[in-house]
C-alpha cells in the first residue's frame, strides 16, 4: 500500500510518516507543492494525503491535477478546521474525505483505511480480526460465522477500533469519531463508556473476551492477543 504525504510542517510530516509506516504502509513525503506535483505526475499512489496550505501553492490544485490525470489514488484532504469552504470545495473536486487539523492519528488512520477499502475492493472486502469478520458494505459483523447484532454507535465504535488494532484510542478521539463537532455537547465520555460496556457484553455473550482493553486514564485499545 503506497501513500504520499504532502505536508510542509516537518514535525507533523515525520509523525505521520512514522505512524503510517508502523502500520505497514509504504510512505513517501513531499514538503512543497512543486515536489508533490512532480511526484504525483511521476508515480502511482494508492492514497494521497494533502495538506491544503502549502508554502508555494494550494493543495486543492493538487487534487485538480490528480483528477485531471484520471488517477486512481484516493485523496484525503487535511486542512485548518475554520476553513469550512475548503471542505466543500475539496469534496466537490473529488477528494474522498476531509480531515480538519488538528486531528487524531487514529482518526486519520481509520479514514485512510476506509478510503483504501472503498477504492481497492469496491466493497467486496471484509475485515478480519481474530474471531471477528466485518463486512462494512452490509454493516454485518460475524463472530465465528454467527451474526452479532450491534447498535449503530456500537458498530461505528467497533469499526474504529478495528481500524487501529493494538493502538490506544483516547476517549477524546473516540468521542470525535462518533459525534464529530458535537462531541463536547454533554457527557460524551460517559456515553463511550456505556457503548463500550454494551459492546464488550455482546462480544462476551458470543464467547469472545478480552478484545477491548481499558487503558486507565486515557482510553481503550483493541488487543491482538
Amino acid at each position, binding site marked *: 500500500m503506497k501513500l504520499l504525504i504532502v505536508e510542509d*510542517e516537518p*514535525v*507533523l510530516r515525520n*509523525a*505521520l510518516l*512514522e*505512524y503510517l509506516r508502523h502500520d505497514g504502509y509504504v510512505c513517501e513525503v513531499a514538503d512543497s507543492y512543486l515536489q508533490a506535483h512532480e511526484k504525483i505526475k511521476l508515480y502511482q499512489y494508492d492514497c494521497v494525503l494533502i495538506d491544503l496550505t502549502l508554502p508555494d501553492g494550494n493543495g486543492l490544485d493538487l487534487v485538480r491535477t490528480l483528477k485531471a490525470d484520471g488517477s486512481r489514488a484516493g485523496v484525503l484532504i487535511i486542512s*485548518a*478546521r*475554520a476553513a*469550512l*469552504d475548503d471542505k*466543500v470545495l475539496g469534496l466537490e473536486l473529488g477528494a474522498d474525505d476531509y480531515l*480538519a*487539523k*488538528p*486531528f*487524531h*492519528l*487514529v482518526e486519520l488512520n481509520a479514514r485512510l483505511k476506509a478510503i483504501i477499502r472503498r477504492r481497492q475492493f469496491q466493497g467486496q472486502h471484509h475485515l478480519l480480526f481474530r474471531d471477528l469478520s466485518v463486512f462494512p458494505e452490509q454493516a454485518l459483523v460475524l463472530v465465528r460465522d454467527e451474526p452479532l447484532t450491534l447498535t449503530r*454507535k456500537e458498530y461505528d465504535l467497533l469499526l474504529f477500533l478495528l481500524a487501529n488494532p493494538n*493502538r*490506544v484510542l*483516547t*476517549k*477524546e*478521539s473516540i468521542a470525535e469519531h*462518533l*459525534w*464529530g*463537532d*458535537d462531541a*463536547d*455537547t*454533554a*457527557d*460524551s465520555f*460517559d*456515553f463511550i463508556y456505556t457503548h463500550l460496556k454494551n459492546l464488550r457484553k455482546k462480544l462476551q455473550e458470543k464467547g469472545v473476551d478480552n478484545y477491548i482493553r481499558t*487503558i*486507565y*486514564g*486515557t*482510553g481503550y485499545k483493541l488487543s491482538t492477543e
Partner: protein
Amino acid sequence: MKLLSSTNRYYLLLAALVFAVGSVVFYYSMGWALRVEVDEQLVNHRTATLNLIRRTGQLPTNSLGNELAVTPGPLPTQLRDTTFFDPVEQEQVPYRQLSFAVSSSQGAQWVTLRKSLLETEDMLGVVLAVMLTVLSLLLLSLGVLNRWLAHRIWHPFQLTLEALRHYNLQHQQPLALAAATPIDEFTELNQALTQMSTRLAADYQSLKDFTENAAHEIQTPLAIMQVKLEQLLQTEELPLATSQLIGDLYGATMRLSRLHQALALLTKIENRQFPGAVPLALDKVVENKLHLLQDFVDNKELRVERVVAPGQPPLHMHPALAESMVGNLLQNAIKHNHRGGTLSWILTPDYLAISNTGPALVGEPSRFFERFRKLNATSDSPGLGLSIVQQICRYYGYTVSYSFAAADSLHTLRVQF
C-alpha cells in the same frame, strides 16, 4: 437639552435681568427728569406770577381748578408733593406745588402754584410700554433668527453626526465627511474625525491581522502537540501514572484546540469571510442536527417537541454557519436541560425558537451571549457557543434573544429573522 435651548435659556435669563434692571432705572430716571421739568416750570411760573403782580398789583385769580391757590396762612416755600382728589378720575392725583408769599392790598398772601403729575405718569407708562414692546419684539426676532441660523449653521454638524452614527469599524469603509464646510470649526472637527477614523481603521486592521496570524500560528504547534502526545500514548508498556499524565495532557490539548477552533470561527465571521450564502431550508438543518445529537437527547430522556408553521422563512445563509448556529442552540438546549425535560423548537417564517426546561439562571440575560460566559465555571466547554450564535445572527442581520418563563421554567432562545 439641545445646545440651542441651552444658550437660549441663558439669553432669556440675561435679557430678563437686563430688562428688569433697565426698566427700573429707566422708570426712575424718566420720572426724575419729568419731575425736574415740572419743578422748572413751577419756578418759571412763579417768576411770571410775581412779575404779573408787580405790574398789575392784582393777585392772580384761581381760574382753573387746582392750578393756582391764594391763601392767607403762612406756608413753607419749598417745592412739595401733594395729592388732590380728581372727581373725573375718581382717585387721588399727585401734584407738585410751590408756594410763595406776595404782598397785596389784602396784606401778605401766599400763592400756591400746582402742576398735576398725572400726565407725566401717563407718559412714563406709554414710554415704558413702547420700550417693553420693542425690546420683546427684538428678543423674539433674535430668537427666531437664532433658530434659523442654528439650523443653517449646524447643518454640517448634523451631517457629521449622522455619518458618525452609521460608522462601523468592521465595515472597513472610511468615515465619509465633508472636507470643507462653511464653518471653520466644523471643518476642523471633520478633519480631526477623519484622521481619527483612519488611525482607528489602521489599528483595527493590524489588531485583526495579529489575531489572525496568531490563530494561524497556534494551529500548527497544537496539531504537533496532539500528534506527539498520541504517539507517546502508543508506546508499549507505559507505566500507569505516566499514561494518566499523558491522558490529562492530551485532554487539555484537545480543549485548547476546541477553544482555538471556536475563536478562529468567531474571527472569521467577524471578518465577514463567509460570502457564499445559499437558499436554505432551516427545518431540515434542525432535523439533521437533532438526528446527530440523538444520542445526547436519548441519554437525558428528553421529549422533543416540534412546531413548524407553514411557509419557510426565506433564508440565505452559508450552510456551515446555519449548521453552526442551529448546532450551538441545540447543544445549549441539551446541555442545560434536566433529565426527562423537554426540548422544543418552533420555526415560523419570522423566527426560530428553541426552548429547554431547566432551573432558573442567575445573572443578567444579556450577558449570556458574552464570550467565555459559562454557567458552570468548571465546565470543559469554552463557553463560546452563544457568542457564535450571536455573531452569526449579527452577520445576517438577525437578532437573538433569551427569555425565561418561570411558570414552566422554560428557557427560550429566539432568533428573529
